[in-house]
């Protein structure tokens, strides 16, 4: 029943990935999907920057610029950053807590395919009546008036991808709550696991607001509802609230896992235990908690009134405190350590000052009165690229390089990684540092052109040059990834001399992860065994049968169903049959799934004994 075909042909490999429920393979799927969309979003960013290289440029048309801008933001946030984070979570979290898989392998796969088809849906818009053009925030009523089907693709595509995200979120919470290895108490969990847990909780409570907002948008546009229609009593502010009730927690969904990555990378390469572990956990929870009470800082200029603005301003500033705790804890983890400047570490070190700047401009934005100047100017663009690129994206790259051996069993070329880092890092600061000033000098964001003689030329020019450097850096990295896989030089289970459980098993791990579940004796379990034991994890259970889930093609079909149904709902009329087919596939798959027992299968003890000893679990 197992589909681990040896030396399989392309067809069977493809089939294997289409049906896989193994978290390690799903991680690779997320990586491929996410990286593809990252390049796409990056290309869109390049179009933006080329358009803005000189004043009054007409490289892109006004309408097309808005489409590119919207798709850049949407793609990067929903289709690049989040999936790449899910790739890291999928590869690392089950291994870090000593589990054989996630709680719901089937749902894990469903989550991926929903994201994938949602992303494809969004991008199909380029070829059908044009892409969404109302900004990634899609403020009504502009989004209601927007012609063509662009915004419909936005609302339906994000809806589908959003379901996937929600499922992935629930899956990780349950996995972490229920499936930790013996001895792995909450306060012994690695920080990446912690931040995954908290980010997933944020997903759980933030995405439903987006779901409702998107439904309202869809219903307004396609079924004549009047949520945001001023003429029949609707109110566009509702959309803004719902979007930001989701949107602000979303940015912490993006940053917390990155914080987690750095909290793994820094201790590993400083060869020191994480400084202030419990305050790190506490800070994470606090950030998440505050994260739900600050959304209106995106709406300071909407006119909510000074009382609301003040409350939200103060609540927003409060987040600086737990974040500061984290920054200083990292610094003091480095303090007294033995720092190795490997490429993941260099990314982590690049992150600290960059994110601090981004966070500081965040606090400046939080000052409500001052935000009347900053809001919707390039100052905000600079702020969020500093935190997103300087935080999330650097975190993703650090994590990707760090866990690359676990995913593929190979090690990326360090030298090229350093080249990548410096090109990307310098390019980044060139691109975005000067945008702070552009904003203060009076350049609003989402501007297709800026005029001559307004003093905005130089900084825009520098910014574009910087973006090119980032692109070159990215190309170096893509080259590195490809070449590493082509060479395919295998590495050991623990190439970084690391501290957590995932490094106790081979790279890449066998499909059942742990032959015997390990016994966890404290924080950084592998480190403990290295310094106090024989360097190997002790088993917590006798060798026994391992229960494994079956592969399934159903997730793919279900997602495809929603994808098809989306078109039916969008085009209506004679296309309703598509909706019928799509929903038929979707609900049909559900019924099929519920009628067919999925009990999984067992790897027998004897077969496990036959497997070559990997030197990990005794």
């Amino acid at each position, binding site marked *: 029943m197992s589909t681990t075909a040896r030396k399989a042909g392309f067809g069977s490999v493809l089939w294997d990935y289409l049906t896989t429920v193994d978290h390690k393979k799903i991680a690779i799927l997320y990586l491929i999907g996410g990286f593809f969309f990252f390049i796409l979003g990056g290309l869109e960013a390049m179009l933006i920057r080329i358009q803005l290289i000189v004043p009054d440029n007409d490289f892109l048309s006004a309408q097309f610029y808005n489409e590119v801008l919207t798709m850049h933001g949407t793609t990067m946030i929903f289709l690049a950053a989040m999936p790449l984070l899910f790739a890291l979570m999928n590869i690392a979290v089950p291994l870090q807590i000593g589990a054989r898989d996630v709680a719901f392998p089937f749902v894990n796969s469903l989550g991926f395919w929903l994201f994938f088809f949602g992303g494809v849906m969004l991008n199909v818009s380029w070829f059908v009546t044009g892409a969404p053009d109302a900004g990634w925030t899609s403020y009504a009523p502009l989004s209601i008036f927007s012609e063509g089907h662009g915004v419909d693709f936005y609302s339906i595509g994000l809806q589908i991808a959003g379901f996937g995200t929600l499922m992935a979120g629930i899956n990780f919470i349950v996995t972490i709550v229920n499936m930790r290895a013996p001895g792995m108490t909450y306060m012994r969990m690695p920080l990446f696991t912690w931040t995954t847990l908290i980010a997933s909780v944020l997903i759980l409570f933030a995405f439903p607001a987006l779901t409702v907002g998107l439904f309202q948008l869809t219903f307004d546009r396609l079924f004549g509802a009047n949520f945001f229609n001023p003429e029949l009593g609707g109110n566009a502010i509702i959309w803004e609230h719902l979007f930001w009730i989701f949107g602000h927690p979303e940015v912490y969904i993006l940053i917390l896992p990155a914080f987690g990555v750095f909290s793994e990378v820094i201790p590993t390469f400083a060869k020191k235990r994480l400084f202030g572990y419990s305050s790190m956990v506490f800070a994470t929870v606090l950030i998440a908690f505050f994260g739900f009470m600050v959304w209106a800082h995106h709406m300071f200029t909407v*006119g909510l009134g000074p009382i609301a603005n003040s409350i939200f301003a103060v609540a927003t500033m409060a987040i600086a405190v737990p974040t500061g705790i984290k920054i200083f804890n990292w610094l003091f983890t*480095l303090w007294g350590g033995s720092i*190795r400047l490997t490429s993941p570490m260099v990314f982590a070190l690049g992150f600290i000052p960059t994110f601090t700047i981004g966070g*500081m401009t965040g606090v400046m934005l939080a*000052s409500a009165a001052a935000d*009347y100047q900053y809001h919707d100017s390039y100052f905000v663009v600079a702020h969020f690229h500093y935190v997103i690129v300087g935080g999330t994206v650097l975190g993703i790259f650090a994590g990707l390089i760090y866990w690359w051996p676990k995913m593929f069993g190979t090690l990326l070329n360090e030298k090229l990684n350093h080249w990548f880092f410096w090109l990307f890092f310098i390019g980044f600061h060139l691109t975005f540092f000067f945008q702070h000033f552009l904003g203060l000098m009076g350049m609003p964001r*989402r501007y297709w052109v800026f005029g001559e003689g307004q003093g905005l030329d130089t900084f825009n020019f520098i910014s574009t040059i910087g973006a090119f450097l980032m692109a070159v850096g990215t190309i170096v990295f893509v080259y590195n990834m490809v070449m590493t896989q082509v060479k395919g030089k295998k590495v050991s289970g623990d190439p970084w001399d690391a501290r957590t459980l995932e490094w106790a098993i081979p790279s890449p791990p066998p499909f059942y992860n742990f032959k015997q579940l390990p016994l966890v004796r404290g924080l950084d379990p592998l480190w403990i065994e290295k310094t106090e034991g024989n360097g190997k994890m002790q088993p917590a259970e006798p060798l026994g049968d391992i229960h494994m889930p079956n592969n399934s093609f159903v997730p793919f079909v279900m997602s495809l169903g929603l994808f098809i149904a989306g078109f039916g709902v969008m085009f209506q009329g004679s296309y309703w049959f598509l909706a019928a087919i799509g929903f038929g596939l979707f609900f049909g798959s559900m019924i099929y799934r519920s009628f067919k027992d999925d009990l999984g299968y067992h790897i027998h003890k004897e077969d496990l004994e036959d497997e070559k000893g990997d030197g990990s679990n005794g």
Partner: protein
Amino acid sequence: MKGWMSKLKAISALIVLSLVLSGCGEPFLSALQPKGEGSEMIFDLMILSIVIMLFVFVVVMVIYTFVIIKYRRKKDDDPNFIPKQTEGNHALETLWTVIPIILLIILAVPTIQYTFALADTSPEVNEEGEEEDSLWINVTGAQYWWHFEYEGLEVSTSQELYIPTDRKVYLSMTSQDVIHSFWVPTIAGKMDVNPTGNTNEMTLLAKEEDVYWGKCAELCGPSHSLMDFKVVAVSPGEFEQWVQDMQGVTGEEVPESATAQEGQQLFADNCMTCHAIGADPNKMGPNLTNFGDRTKLAGVEDYNKKNIVEWIQTKGKDMKPGNLMTSAPYELSDEEASKIAEYLMTLSPSDITTENAEDGVYKDSDLSSLFPEEEEETEEENGENTEEQGNEENTEQTNEENNEEQTDDQ
């Protein structure tokens, strides 16, 4: 409060001024060269926050640089060296919790004060402690232009907003289609205009005469970036003059040249469904009462006849993509368009134009002629559909009185 804020400012002046005033942006657009009450208050707040942030950044960077240099593993270090595994340090952890809290309180207090101060739309009070009359202007955002109605004065303009200096001007703001945001960086922050019945209020107080550039700051469609406007701040006397001149316009005035007269007729036939001259409430398209005095055509294009003709002939299709004039049904020959342009360029009812925003003549005025006693009630009602109600009765009186004043002045 003001006291220690300015002290802080003094300390930081060296660091920040060099940074900020080193020609950052153009004086008519940059938020870093504030020339209005709102922008100055915000600028104070910015400086305060930048000082705090620089402090934090320096602390972080000092530790950061130190650790990296000191604790990097050097070539000749023992690779098996195991550093001490510290769990944490309560004193330190408390320190970096408490200090940021203090810093944030320092920032939060003026933030709240200024947030309330900037939201304050109560009337100004003069030296004797009496409330002064407030000049309310109804601002309407539309794709992709701005409309301004001076409440109670029967004056409408578009694209270029004339205001008196040193006097608070009160804006009551809505949108007639999608959300826009009204931003004049040099004199005030920004405020959204909402289409769904939520009227926003803000104030402008320009401290120097100048033409300030305004921008639309909320994505509103393809020509979002072309939705520029100007705020023309003139001395109160000049402003008073301007209002009176504008009030005199009916739209019936016959221009001198014959071509312009023909243009006027063509304009009436083709354009009046959307455009108004005089205080007509029509705001399908910009009000063109003082179109002859515009510094820019449609907010962004250079103002010259060639461009105006092109605008009329192409209906602004390429000059402002997606603009709503493209739905105008007319067909005109080049010649006709040129005649219209000729006519439009004669529309200059007042001697007070953007050029006057530089000198200080007509300085003395308290604008009292603009606020006859009877009008006080109408101020209360601002907000909802003011232009129809209330003002009608007052018009005639206002005009009469204005005319009297005018003669007085001379």
